[in-house]
């Protein structure tokens, strides 16, 4: 069974008197353990597709099955639960809570999942270890470098052992050296069996994946494996 089954997914919305068709009917399958990049210029619909895959939004038409569950018709609360359990977000701007420590940021998804204090701390510790930041857990984001912040975000994404890690321009706010560190971390995570989907407009980032899906004008333009260089 495919991890992600998307069938004729489309999304349109009203902007004043006009209707914007962000996605016009996208179909694809993603298997467990894949490392996929979704590439496209701005306005191509890649962000819309990412929001739909990440269950932040519901499609206008079409079907989306994630890990065997049909999420296309779910309500707000059900989607929140899915996001908590199955999706690990990594954002371009990190999106950490600025007044909380790294530890608190990482354990937040577990808090929302109702996990008790002891096991929660343990799991958060492990996630921080996976990104090599165990020694920074009491630091606040403003005490961390950009690369470290993104690593905290990745730890937060990993903490609930989600089905997919969904990264939106993960290196967009980082210099090339730090960006390289993050991409190396993604390589590592992929090797460990995580399913990773990266949405980007940068070719170099996309080429680090093993399957590239190009989007243009709300439709899939191409879907090919990445040749190892």
């Amino acid at each position, binding site marked *: 069974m495919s991890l992600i089954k998307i069938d004729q997914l489309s999304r349109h919305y009203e902007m004043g008197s006009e209707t914007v068709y962000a996605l016009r009917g996208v179909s694809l399958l993603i298997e467990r353990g894949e490392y996929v990049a979704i590439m496209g210029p701005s306005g191509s619909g890649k962000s819309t597709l990412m929001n739909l895959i990440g269950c932040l939004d519901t499609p206008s038409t079409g079907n989306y099955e994630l890990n065997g569950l049909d999420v296309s018709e779910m309500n707000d609360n059900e989607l929140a639960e899915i996001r*908590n359990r199955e999706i690990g*977000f990594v954002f371009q701007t990190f999106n950490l809570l600025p007044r909380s420590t790294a530890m608190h940021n990482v354990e937040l998804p577990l808090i929302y999942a109702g996990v008790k204090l002891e096991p929660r701390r343990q799991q958060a510790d492990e996630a921080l270890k996976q990104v090599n930041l165990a020694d920074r857990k009491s630091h606040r984001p403003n005490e961390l470098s950009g690369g470290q912040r993104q690593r905290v975000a990745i730890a937060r994404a990993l903490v609930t052992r989600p089905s997919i890690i969904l990264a939106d321009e993960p290196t967009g706010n980082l210099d090339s050296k730090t960006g390289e560190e993050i991409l190396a971390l993604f390589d590592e995570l992929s090797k460990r069996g995580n399913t990773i989907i990266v949405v980007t407009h940068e070719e170099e980032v996309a080429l680090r994946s093993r399957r590239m899906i190009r989007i243009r004008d709300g439709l899939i333009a191409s879907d090919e494996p990445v040749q190892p260089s």
Partner: protein
Amino acid sequence: MTYFTELIEGLIIAWDAIKANKLRSVLTTLGIVIGIMTVTLMGTAIAGFRSSFLNAIASFGTDVFHVQRFSWFFGSEQEWLDARKRERIALDQVRQLEQALTLSEAVAPVTQTGKPVTYRDKKSSGVQVIGTNEQYLLTSGSLVAGGRFFNRAESDGGRPVCVIGANVSSNLFQSISPLNETLRIGEKPFSVVGVLGKQGGLFGEMGGDNSVIIPLEQWRYQFYSRPDLTIHVKVGDIDRMNEAKEELRSAFRRIRGVRPGEADDFAINQQDQFLESFNKVLAVIGTAGFFITGLSLFVGGIGIMNIMLVSVTERTHEIGIRKAIGAKRRAILAQFLIEAAVICLIGGLIGLAIAFPISLALKSKLGGTMPLSVVLMAIGVSLLTGLISGFLPAWRAARMDPVDALRSE
């Protein structure tokens, strides 16, 4: 997410938010502080007023009937005009009544007038001179502090003896013992046989502290031979009050010649009536008072709502993050409700902290200290204000679309 963890997380977030905007939090909470201050001080005043009143009428005795021409409380002016026409209560009627009653412990005819009282060169005006019999000691619930009350022989014989109230004693005699001294009531000499203990309280009719009690016969001899009497009847067994009242009513009707079917031409008054009337008045005052002070709380609550709306807007992006990682609507709702409740609770506690010393300072005027019920009410009301004011903003936050929320800022 269990309720407890939600609560803790909410408290942490609330505390963070308050710390991050200290000035704003202080200003917001000011409305609640003032609201709670006024509400608690008013609550204390009402409670104090009530207990002063209860203390005062306690001296009336819950087990004493006052049989009089007039009822203590009138339903209408017509009632009062009719009552005026009634035959006065005369001494021989009292004697007959005493014979007829079986359920009472003491019967005392009572009348009074205001006369100046002098001792040597000191004069006390505005003293009530009460004429009654020796059973007055029982019916009035007075306590003798020094000496004794006059006895049956002195009462029947109309001897010129008197028992004086605590204030009369301290005014005229100061530190000397008044016992066996002679004072003049009107111009006549009376020998002091006893002094009553201080009663305090605010009650006029039986302002015992400022009265002098003499045998009824002397009173009639000195002042007026045919007074309109009040009969004090003390019931022996408090559990048989109603029975005693009925016995009293039927006996007195017979004595006064009231025919069956006719209404009573006298009134049997009880302390209860005071309490009932008083409670009614207090309820009205209380309601009006709470309404007015409640208004200031209302204004405070609006301030809270306003600031919470701002807070929610400011934290739109944060709400988006929380939703993205799995916060359900209820969790976001709870987060902001708790924040509003905490701000209001802190305001309430500060208001209490300011009101409490003020209530202590004004203790004598207010009639008492702040009762625990008022403190608890203040805390409860603060919390409630927070929850109500915070609801709309919290609801807004909970319903935000995560995609839009993430996009802001």
